[in-house]
């Protein structure tokens, strides 16, 4: 990971701690005046960095709100021209919360108003993240962090403890930004979602409420419900009688309901087989799975049989429970309208799968779906989603080049970016496909072709490409080159590409 630190604080000790924690190359750009530094940096200088970390500290530097606002404005500009991820310490914000000192000072609210426009603009950039460092510093206590002698001599005000905490957090951020996002949370029931064992203690014996015995479980269910609302898919994997578990969810007043789970494996099968089968049903890799269970046996077996799954063991200990819910694994990089519909989309997908079995042939089934394709070209409103797909799509992706929204818009000015929306009788899939066609001196090149995994398996990709190439053919040219780059995760795209090279669609 190549990281650039942009700061008005001397961050060398943090870079040193980071280097000792793995393969991180850290470059540091220190500017006495951060704003000036941000103005001087060029796109060339940003190139090649995966992460740009911006740090200033209002408690130490005492910036004016005008200056903060200038820094944020400049960050908005950098985020829109670069594909790097930007991570900014929230110590950049004004140090007092809105309204607290407003009576005495008068202009505090105005100061907040003046930066709120910039923070809103920043939050809209998918490559921009706030680093909630201040929260961690508050947990430690400011007196245990700052060492002002060093601060005033060397512009480095943190002691060793703070440096360690700081470096550990950045490592977690790097993991979060580099690893594929988790999408599915698989849950055990007994002593995980409630206190007690339903098969033995019965409906009246298990606890998931605000009592001392039930509160951890109640809070976990609330937390999981929130995860569902930001696009995580919840599944059950429990060794129990399905009727008992169903009855518990239906009769007890718990935050989660039976229908909140998209796939339920309540049986006596091996849990690793159940998880694999859930992955198949959802058409997702197990590397996007998180598994929560209290049992040593289940936890160990999933860790050894399915090491790609992120496993947490639940203990009856509230402090430990908080460590789990604080994990980056349960965070989202960005929230799109697509994410918010995720649960609904998979419900629709499940009804498709259920009906699939009742048809004689695949052709007949696909026909019965009444699939409708809506293809658009160079539609600016789609560019953000296109950029998201270039970054998130793994399986069906010809050319894993991530593009920022600004770059997509730049490409579209000279070339053609086709987007595909799909719907069928069960519901709407959303924007699920992108074809990027480059026009270079009368040559037409298929630069990238990507499809979201939930639209695969319905021969839609073939129709999409056929219709795009037909349009190109009718305008008097044809695709002469297809750019494909093999990765370790794009097998479905490779299969399609190989088929294509044997039998081109456009001929």
């Amino acid at each position: 990971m190549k990281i650039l630190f942009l700061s008005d604080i001397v961050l060398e000790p943090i870079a040193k701690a980071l280097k000792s924690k793995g393969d991180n190359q850290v470059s540091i750009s220190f500017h006495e005046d951060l704003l000036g530094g941000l103005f001087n940096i060029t796109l060339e200088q940003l190139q090649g960095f995966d992460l740009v970390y911006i740090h200033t500290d209002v408690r130490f530097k005492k910036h004016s709100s005008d200056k903060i606002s200038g820094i944020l404005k400049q960050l908005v500009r950098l985020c829109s021209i670069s594909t790097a991820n930007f991570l900014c310490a929230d110590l950049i914000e004004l140090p007092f919360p809105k309204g607290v000192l407003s009576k005495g000072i008068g202009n505090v609210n105005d100061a907040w108003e003046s930066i709120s426009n910039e923070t809103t603009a920043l939050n809209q950039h998918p490559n921009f993240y706030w680093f909630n460092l201040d929260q961690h510093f508050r947990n430690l206590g400011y007196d245990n962090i700052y060492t002002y002698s060093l601060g005033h001599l060397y512009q480095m005000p943190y002691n060793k403890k703070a440096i360690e905490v700081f470096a550990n957090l950045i490592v977690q951020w790097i993991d979060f930004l580099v690893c594929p996002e988790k999408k599915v949370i698989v849950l055990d029931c007994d002593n995980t979602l409630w206190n007690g064992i339903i098969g033995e203690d019965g409906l009246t014996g298990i606890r998931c409420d605000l009592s001392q015995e039930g509160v951890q479980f109640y809070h976990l269910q609330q937390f999981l419900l929130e995860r569902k609302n930001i696009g995580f898919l919840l599944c059950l994997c429990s060794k129990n009688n399905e009727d008992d578990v169903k009855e518990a969810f239906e009769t007890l007043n718990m935050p989660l309901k039976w229908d909140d789970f998209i796939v339920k494996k309540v049986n006596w099968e091996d849990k690793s087989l159940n998880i694999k089968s859930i992955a198949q049903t959802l058409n997702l890799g197990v590397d996007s799975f998180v598994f929560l269970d209290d049992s040593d046996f289940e936890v160990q077996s999933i860790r050894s049989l399915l090491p790609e799954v992120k496993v947490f063991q639940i203990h009856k200990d509230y402090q430990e429970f908080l460590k789990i819910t604080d994990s980056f694994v349960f965070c989202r990089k960005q929230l799109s309208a697509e994410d918010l519909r995720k649960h609904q989309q998979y419900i629709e997908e499940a009804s498709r799968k259920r009906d699939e079995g009742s048809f004689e042939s695949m052709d007949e089934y696909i026909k019965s779906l009444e699939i409708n394709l809506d293809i658009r070209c160079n539609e600016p409103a789609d560019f953000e989603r296109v950029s998201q797909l270039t970054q998130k799509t793994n399986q069906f992706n010809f050319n894993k080049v991530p593009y920022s929204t600004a770059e997509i818009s730049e490409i579209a000015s000279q070339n053609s970016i086709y987007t595909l929306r799909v719907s069928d009788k069960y519901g709407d899939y959303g924007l699920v496909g992108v074809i990027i066609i480059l026009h270079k001196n009368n040559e037409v090149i298929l630069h990238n072709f990507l499809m979201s995994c939930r639209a695969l398996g319905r021969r839609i990709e073939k129709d999409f490409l056929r219709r795009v190439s037909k349009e190109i053919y009718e305008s008097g040219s044809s695709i002469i080159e297809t750019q494909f780059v093999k990765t370790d995760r794009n097998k479905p795209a490779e299969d399609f590409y190989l088929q294509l090279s044997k039998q081109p669609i456009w001929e």
Partner: protein
Amino acid sequence: MGITIEKLQDIFRSAFSSEVEINLETTKDNLPDWDSINHLNLIVELEDGLNIHFQPDEIESMKSVKVLLDLIQKKSNV
């Protein structure tokens, strides 16, 4: 109380991230690794490892191992 030169050498090594050798004659001028960034790292390690706190003028005066040892000795006796 105070600190042995061996213990001080350990602190130098973790601060400088290198296997430096120090003795009573070592100074900022004759130890090439002892630049200003490593001086900063050294103070961070000393304050943490010995649980003491230095004033800015003390930090600036620490130009040799001898001065350092005296200063630590003085601080620990308070």
